[in-house]
């Protein structure tokens, strides 16, 4: 079984697309386009806007926490008993756009605890390898 990143519990997916950031931004922020690749939604690219994502496996409660057109979009993502934060980052390249998604499994208060003990977490996850090695 693979270990989470040494310093945080997060999922990162990155991909390069041969399109300008403006176009990808539309796919990330227009409800009828979001629906095509992610889930049914009532999204608006407005700070503090609360919205739902709905799929056959359940609903996700979200709130927009950062919007910087064509550059970054961030929203909370509460589902499966864990509130996380999904952050999209768009960076222009010579041939298109590098798109990065990071879903971080910490709530606000936990992020504070995490920042307060960053070294501790690293040591913690390193020390866990032995335990995790025993997982099937």
């Amino acid at each position, binding site marked *: 079984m693979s270990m989470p990143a040494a310093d945080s519990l997060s*999922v990162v*997916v990155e991909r390069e697309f041969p399109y300008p950031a403006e176009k990808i931004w539309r796919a990330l922020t227009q409800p009828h386009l979001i629906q095509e*690749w992610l889930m049914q939604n009532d999204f608006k690219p407005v700070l503090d806007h609360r919205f739902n994502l709905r799929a056959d496996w359940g609903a996700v409660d979200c709130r927009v926490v950062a919007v910087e057109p064509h550059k970054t979009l961030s929203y909370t993502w509460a589902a499966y008993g864990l509130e996380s934060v999904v952050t999209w980052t768009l960076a222009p390249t010579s041939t298109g756009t590098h798109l990065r998604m990071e*879903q971080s499994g910490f709530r606000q208060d936990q992020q504070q605890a995490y920042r307060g003990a960053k070294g501790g977490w690293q040591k913690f996850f390193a020390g866990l390898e*032995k335990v995790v090695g025993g997982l099937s």
Partner: protein
Amino acid sequence: MRAEPNTVLKSLSDPTRRALFERLSREGELTVHALTAPSGVSQPAVSKHLHGLKAAGLVRDRRDGRETYYRAMPDGLTPLFDWLKFYSTFWQSRFDRLGDLLKRMDQ
């Protein structure tokens, strides 16, 4: 019984609880006394933290005479790994669909 990932994370977000769990992971079964000695925390506080870890499914206890022994439960971390595994697969497939959509938007 399987704890939710939030319960596990919440439990481990406390530095004292994390240190206790880390020590049990490293050193195996220990008594409350042994866990209290170097922690700089009172025994009732250590016991309280251990109960919290137990509720989150991260440790298990065993009484022997006057001593209570604790050990780490590796399976207690499974909700976190399930969460990571689910979302890794989920986002990979959504990136594929996003790529398909962007291609269609060209036409």
